[in-house]
């Protein structure tokens, strides 16, 4: 029996626009699929194909008559064309014919359609001579982490539940990992003589065996649900949440270093977007937009790629790039369309919240941002965006509180986490704190110079501010005029806007002389 998905794929291809009017191609494809599936090698020889399928007689000589090679090449090209077309997303399988043989290959087409992230194997273990307390805690942590990590859809979580793999063994990180796991996280629970627990965690990159994370934490004998929760957050926040975490940025970076040509199609959107979040620049944004347009043209149902596209609006707004030309209303409407099909996706809720914010509809914005926090309470990046947008809505104190509470989980968050905090201190006239936080902002084309400039402006050091702004202007990538700053970053600081204008005016007066 031929697998139903194969027959279904075959019939879809045969009915497609490309194949419909080509009886010879249809006959050849059906013939090859049938005999490949039945593993009938004789039937897949040039001679058999020519005689049984292409209407040649027994005198056929493959050395003189290239008909099979020509028709196979045509079919190969046609199949490629078909899978590049919009119609192809109806086909559950991808049918291809590698050069050098007349066997066709079936691979899952569906996997290529939705952008995906990396894969993570979670192993939880306790010592050989374990006691019940260790075992219980280990099982709880395994379940708790599984539950939480499963909320992150940029990673593909696999958890090992085999009892024989629960025993701590040297090297298990290496020998239990399989080819499809990009990263392996191993946790070990050990109880000491006083009864307290030591939970150690290690994360490796399987391919290079590089250790990316190695920590241990003590839990009291009578640990509480809150204590466990804090433990989970201290793992999740730096490893997978903040700016996609150590794992996300490692994955994106290592794949980019390999070269985009080698990265599998369905990973590309996530790789590029994660990388963009960690090193935003106008050039990078442009490249990602170009790529996403192409991908969405090919797979218009890839809602993850679509939401990455809409998320570039963040950079547009806060860095003044203005790359997406559709109106904010259109983009908001599109977000709702994505949310229709992916109601569980917290990142889409964040996007809706952001676009409401950009449209100045703060109540709706807050509501949708909170929805995102309900859908995935474990992603501290969503908490940061919530806090940051609250801050720029004018709810400075509330936003500041939300963001400052995140530092307890991740001591070294991404540079942009400090931007709202920096403005908060400026507003509070706490100059030393503002300067120290400002120095941690390292993000996007010359943004750190801008932050320095604003800090200087705030204390009236216009000369210095001017120097910093000149640095940005000399940065060729960022050639826009810097008026967007007034409407975004400085929206809560009318006094700074005045000073900023004075400096900008003076600079533009100076320009012709330079």
């Amino acid at each position, binding site marked *: 029996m031929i697998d139903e998905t194969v027959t279904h794929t075959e019939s879809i291809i045969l009915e497609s626009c490309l194949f419909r009017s080509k009886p010879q191609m249809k006959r050849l494809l059906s013939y090859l699929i049938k005999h490949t599936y039945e593993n009938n090698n004789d039937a897949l020889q040039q001679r058999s194909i020519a005689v049984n399928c292409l209407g040649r007689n027994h005198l056929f000589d493959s050395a003189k008559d290239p008909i099979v090679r020509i028709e196979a090449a045509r079919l190969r090209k046609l199949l490629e064309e078909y899978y590049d077309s919009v119609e192809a997303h109806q086909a559950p399988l991808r049918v291809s014919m590698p050069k050098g043989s007349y066997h066709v290959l079936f691979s899952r087409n569906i996997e290529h359609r939705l952008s995906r992230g990396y894969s993570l194997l979670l192993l939880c273990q306790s010592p050989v001579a374990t006691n019940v307390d260790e075992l219980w805690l280990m099982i709880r942590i395994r*379940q708790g982490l599984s539950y939480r990590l499963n909320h992150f859809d940029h990673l593909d979580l696999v958890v090992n539940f085999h009892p024989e793999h629960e025993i701590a063994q040297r090297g298990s990180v290496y020998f239990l990992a399989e080819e499809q796991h990009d990263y392996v996280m191993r946790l070990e629970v050990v109880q000491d003589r006083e009864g307290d627990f030591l939970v150690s965690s290690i994360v490796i990159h399987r391919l290079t065996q590089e250790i990316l994370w190695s920590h241990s934490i003590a839990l009291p004998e009578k640990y509480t649900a809150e204590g466990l929760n804090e433990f989970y957050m201290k793992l999740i926040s730096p490893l997978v949440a903040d700016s996609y975490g150590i794992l996300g940025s490692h994955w994106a970076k290592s794949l980019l270093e390999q070269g985009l040509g080698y990265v599998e199609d369905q990973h590309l959107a996530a790789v590029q977007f994660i990388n963009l979040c960690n090193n935003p620049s106008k050039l990078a944004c442009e490249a990602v937009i170009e790529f996403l347009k192409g991908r969405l043209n090919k797979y218009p149902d890839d809602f993850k790629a679509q939401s990455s596209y809409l998320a570039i609006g963040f950079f547009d707004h806060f860095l003044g790039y203005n790359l997406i030309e559709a109106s904010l209303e259109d983009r908001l409407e599109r977000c709702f369309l994505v949310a229709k099909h992916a109601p569980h996706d917290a990142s889409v809720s964040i996007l809706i919240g952001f676009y409401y914010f950009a449209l100045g509809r703060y109540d709706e914005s807050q509501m949708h941002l909170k929805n995102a926090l309900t859908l995935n309470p474990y992603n501290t990046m969503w908490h940061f965006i919530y806090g940051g947008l609250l801050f720029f809505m004018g709810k400075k104190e509330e936003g500041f509180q939300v963001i400052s509470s995140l530092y307890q989980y991740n001591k070294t968050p991404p540079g942009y986490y400090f931007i709202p905090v920096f403005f908060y201190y400026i507003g509070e006239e706490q100059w030393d704190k503002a300067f120290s936080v400002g120095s941690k902002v390292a993000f996007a084309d010359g943004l750190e110079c801008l932050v320095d400039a604003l800090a200087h402006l705030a204390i009236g050091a216009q000369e210095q501010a001017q120097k910093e702004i000149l640095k940005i202007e000399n940065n060729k990538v960022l050639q826009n005029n810097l008026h967007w700053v007034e409407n975004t970053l400085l929206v809560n600081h009318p006094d700074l806007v005045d000073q900023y204008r004075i400096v900008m005016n003076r600079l533009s007066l100076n320009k012709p002389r330079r």
Partner: protein
Amino acid sequence: MPINDYELSKELEYLFASYLFQNKLQMKRLLGYLIQHANSTSDSAFDQKVIAMKCLGRGADFDPAENPVVRIEIGRLRKLLNRFYDEELTRPYKITIPLGQYRPVLSIEATLNKHKYLPELSPSPANPERLSVLLQFTTEGVDSPELYLLRHRIRIGITITLGKQEAVRLLVAIPGENGKVAADSIDFVMRVSLAAVDAEFTLSSEVCSAQSNEVFFSDERNLEIDYQPADIEVLLSHLVSELFDHEIGVLWRRWVDSRSDYKNVGALKVAALVQYQRYLFDENEENIRQAFYAIESALEFHPGDKIINLALADVYYRAVIHNFDVVADPIEKGLTHIREALRFSPASDNLHTLHALLAMFQQEYDYAIASLLMDEMNAGEACFAPKFHYHVLTCLMSDWKGGFYKLDELCNDFASYPKLHAVLAYIYYFLLEDKTQTLKWKQTIQIQGSVATVQQCIKLMKLPDSWSVKASRDDLWLLINSDLGAMDD
């Protein structure tokens, strides 16, 4: 808006390369000619005689009154163009030849114009093995901030509750979107409407099938104006369970009817789940066997399918607890299967409960206890069936007092009493040595034919501490059997 020549020539090339035009030289020549003159100011190029001479190889003696070739050929071209644009929905331009004229009209597609710089998004195809439902909200009367907030809470609540059910595919209608469901291959449409009446909110919901619009479920619930988030959880747990719960939900019965002779792609998976649902509606040995074999053959072709894997895990559990003869060594095989299934669905509450249940049957009590300690399990928004079996686990792990109380409360709450309820009630009162209650439940068990299930529970449960001190499992087994009048085997 004018289309520049470059864009136009590209569009023509695309058209000519399509399978509709590829081999039709005459059509290509004709269209090329018409397009070339589309913007000319005079009409002379569109004279029938000129067209016949330039494109159709007729001589100067051509007389349109006698020879209809131009009209026929233009008619063919018109049809061809319409067919092309019917099939190619994504073209940026459209070329048409309106009836009554030969001058082609070039238009820029309006839909694309609207989202000019946003790439298109099309819905992903629906999987036939899932139940697809579209959720729509309406507000009656004046929309207030309180209603807005409530609507959001309900939307998120339903989303999260249904998110735990892999087998349900939820779509949430765009605000203001109505009626357009055909394109998304929806099975059911659920309309929820909210209103503020006096000191209460009213939440009314109705469900209809997407094809017929016939409403077969409607429901109205009230919520106090100063409700707590927990009140919403309770309310939604009821609403969602009554509709979507695999054991008591009305939608699954309809779904089974609509899928019972499904033949298209994914038929094996659909057949497996239809059999599984049929077994859940009527738990007996014949049905569980059919479900088991259907699931096995579906898994052969779709080994990684999460929904089917969960169904199989559930079938193993039920085969054990009801002592159905389906497969040899169900406990061991079930455990192996569940651990493998958990690998890819590590966050599934249902699988974790089933894992704990089978681990208990295997007398690996530590696993079962650790699962009972989880805060994430048994959270407020769960459906009826997962909660029910969680309480079964609690009882059988010999926490009868807490477990049975909750089980009973849950069943009363939903007015649904699975056979296991009576079984556990009987054992609970038997252990308590409450003679009247024992007698009462004994009758129920005998009527519903669950004696074998009682025996299985006694064989496999964790023995209460009081019993393990004063007597053995065998003693309890004998006592129960003699009380039930069952033969000792």
